[in-house]
Structure formats: C-alpha cells, structure tokens
C-alpha cells in the first residue's frame, strides 16, 4: 500500500517537474534568481546580511504561491485535472506531489542564491528546514486559492486578500522584533526560521518554530486534500469548464 503510494507520488512528481519545465517555469525561476543575484551583489555588505535571508524567504513563499496557482490553473484549463481524477492517484498524493515539486525548486534556488551572495557561515540544516516548511505552507495556500478559481486572472484577484492577511503580520516585526508571541503567525515563524540560518537564534525558539510549522502543515494538508476533493474531484465539471458557471 505505502509502496504503491510512494510510487504514484514519485511518478506524479516526475510529471509535475516535466510540466513545469515544458511550461517554462524553470526558465522564469532562473531569470528571477539571476536578477536577485545582480541586486544582492550590488548592495553593501551590512544591508546584504538582512537582504539575503529576506530574498531567500520570498522564493518559497511569494514565488511558490504564484507558481502553484499558474500550475494548477494551466492543468485545469487544459482539462488535465479531469483525466487525473479518474486514475488511481489519490488526492493527497496529488497535493503532496505538487508541493514537493515546487519545494525542490525553492530549495535549489535558495541554496544557489545563498552560496553566491553570502560569504559568512550559514546553518544549512536550518536553511533547508526553513525553506521547506515555508514552501509547504504557501504552496498549500496556493492550492486552496487555485481550487476556488477558474482562470489565472481570477486566481490573482483572489490571491490579494490572502496575501495581505498572511503577509501583514510580518510588519509587526519592525516594532516588535523579538516578541515571541509573533511566532504564532506562520509568516513570522517561517521568516525567523530562514533568518535563523544566518543569524543564530536560540535552539528552543527554532525548535518551536519547526514543530509549530510542521504541525500547521500537517493540518493544512488534510484540509487542502479535502478541499481538492470537494472542488475538483466532485466539482461537477464537465469537460474543461463547468457549464453552470459559463
């Protein structure tokens, strides 16, 4: 059972990576990473210490959200989702594969940018965990928004309030940089995790952030899978577009 499930996830992951490559996602990622590199190498050393973690954090969060939306809606518009739901691939396997495919890119891009722009010591385990947990969270949010949208435009419109609600608490860090209670906001926990890879935080704090984000992601996975079933599998879609919503 588990073995078959792993095999399906692996194959779905290969499919997703192939899809991302053919749709030009890798190229876009490379270009954006290159632009980051250009900017980061130009700014002064002391600003860079703060800018590098921020940029690396934005990759799995903001870019992840954009990409997952693009991906799901391209699949939706080409009708591919319809053909996937009549295969043995389970909804949860589909979600895991999507999340994994974007997390891989985020990790690669993050490591690359970090290596090329940051010369001092970095805790790579923290960095890896930070990027992964951030990516898992935001791609799942992206899937939730995409499940509710019919077109890419609609996705971007719906994304705005979500982004504002999720990102806004980060600004509380400006006056309350050290406030532990802010960790309860996923964006703050994620940001501090990535930041902690560069500027060491207390072990207790990092452990809390990791466990907290892991639990949040676990719960989110159950909810996202449910929503995917509800809105995509049983969405009552005929062919490409739901005729009732034309």
């Amino acid at each position, binding site marked *: 059972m588990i073995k078959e499930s792993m095999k399906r996830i692996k194959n779905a992951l290969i499919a997703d990576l192939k899809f991302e490559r053919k749709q030009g996602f890798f190229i876009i990622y490379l270009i954006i990473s290159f632009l980051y590199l250009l900017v980061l190498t130009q700014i002064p050393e002391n600003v860079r210490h703060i800018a590098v973690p921020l940029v690396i954090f934005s990759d799995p969060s903001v870019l992840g959200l954009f990409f997952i939306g693009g991906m799901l809606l391209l699949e939706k518009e080409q009708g591919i989702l319809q053909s996937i739901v009549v295969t*043995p691939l389970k909804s949860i396997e589909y979600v895991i594969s999507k999340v994994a495919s974007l997390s891989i890119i985020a990790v690669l891009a993050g490591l690359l940018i970090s290596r090329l722009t940051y010369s001092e010591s970095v805790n790579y385990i923290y960095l890896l965990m930070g990027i992964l947990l951030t990516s898992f969270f935001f791609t799942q949010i992206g899937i939730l928004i995409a499940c509710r949208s019919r077109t890419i435009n609609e996705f971007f419109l719906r994304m705005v309030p979500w982004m504002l609600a999720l990102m806004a608490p980060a600004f509380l860090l400006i006056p309350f940089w050290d406030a532990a209670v802010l960790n309860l906001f996923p964006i703050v926990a994620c940001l501090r995790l990535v930041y902690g890879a560069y500027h060491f935080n207390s072990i207790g704090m990092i452990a809390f952030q990791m466990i907290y984000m892991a639990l949040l992601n676990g719960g989110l996975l159950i909810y996202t899978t449910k929503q995917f079933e509800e809105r995509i599998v049983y969405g009552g879609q005929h062919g490409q577009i739901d005729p009732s919503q034309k």
Partner: protein
Amino acid sequence: MILVEKLDFTYHNGQKEVLSGLDFHIEKGEVFGFLGPSGAGKTTTQRIIIGLLRGYSGKVKILGKERREWKKDFYERIGVAFDFPNLYTKLSASENLKLIGSYYRNQEQNIEELLDHVGLLKDKDKKVEGFSKGMKMRLNFVRSILHNPDLIFLDEPTTGLDPVNAKIIKDKILELKGEGKTIFLTTHNMTVAEQLCDRVGFINDGVLSVIDSPKNLMVTYGNPMVKVSYIEAGKEETMTLSLTEMSGNLEFHRIVDTCDILTIHSQEATLEDVFIQLTGRSLL
C-alpha cells in the same frame, strides 16, 4: 457489471431534477449505449457511475459493490474517455500516455502498439498542441485503455470527428468488444448507436424511455415505408405507404395494375424515427 436502480440526481446548484428514476443494467462483454439529445443527462449518468458526482439517490452497483463504497483502486479497473480531449498540450503523444500510465498498477501495455492502433505512431513524438481535433480525440481514447481495463466509459467518442477519424475509433471499439471488454458509451448519433451497441437506451430529459437492441427497436417501433414512383398520364408521380398496409391498399394495387412503375423502394425506419416516435423529440 453495472446495475442502476431508481437513480435520481439534481445538481446542487440547480433546481431541476436532471435524472429521474433511471433503471438499467449492463452485462459483461456488451456494448451498451445511451442515445439522446444534448442535455438529456448522458454525461451526468456516466459521471455518477464513474464516481465524480456525489449526492445521487438510488442504487448504483458496479463491479459487485455499491459505488459509494469504492475507493481510488476502482480506477485500476475502469477506463474513462471524456467528450473533451484532456491532454497535456505541451507534451508529446507518447509522453502523455507514459505520464498518465505511470499511475496504474498495470504497466504491461505497449504504448507504441496502442498509438499504432489509432494511427498515431508516426506522431508519437509531436507535441499535442499541434494535433487536430481528431488526433486529440484518438489519443484521448487510447489513454482511457492504457491500463487494459475491463470496463470502459466513452462519452460521445466520435462527436465532432470527420468520418475517417470516427471510423478509426468505431473500429477500435468493436475490437475491444471482441476482446470481451464491457463498454458504456453515450452518443446523440443514431448511426453510432446502430453500428456499435448491443443494446441502447433512449434518454431524454433525464428519463429512460426504452432499452433494447437497435434491431428490435426498429422492428418493434419502426414502421417501414414503401416509396413507389410511376408514370400516370405522361407525368411522373410518387406514392408512399407503409409496408404493412401494402396488400390492403387499393390505390397501390390500381397503380401497380394500370401504370408504368419506375421504381419501388422500401425504406426502413431509422433509430432516430423511433426515437422521435417514443420521446416526441429529435436527436439534434
């Protein structure tokens, strides 16, 4: 294979009942068809049985179990081709098949052989976005039988196809039947129903009015006509009468006795004539 009893369905966002009291069964090894105009409820019925619509009432038993009790492994055993070709447009034909095929336990089918069966072998490495509608539908069709399922659902398999493409698909359906597969197809084309189906159900406005073999339907409900062309007083005339009333029709006898007959053609009732007679509605 499939047993449906008192199936009712209403879309959650619609007020009207889309299916009312459907009763039918499909036996192993047969090609069963739903014939009906657009909006009759053909796709809805298939999607309920396939498991993509919840909230039906009635009984839907498939492969020995109630539909609700099946999990995802159900899809190892059935094949589905929707009426719209759902394909990765940026990938090639064989990549499309490999990708979807990788989700199944059964990996024995030969992809090149499958593509060859529907005349796509030479296009296997071309991107689907450059395919014609007919090529896409053929690819969509073979994708549904990739894992060699015993039960196959085909929604309007030949709609929108030119005669050449339609024939390729029809031949393949008959070949599958020859292999002992069970097929449930929908169509609004009476010729397709006549050529492919062992039994066909007439559906209109969510109601099944009759289920029988196309031949029986035409014999039972069809009223074959006879068309006579003849010359009377130097002018060409025609008369049409029902085959069964030929012997008792005096006018017909007078014409045969006194006029020069040019042609006599018997015209069998088409499945569409029977459909109109039974449902009061045409197929288009």
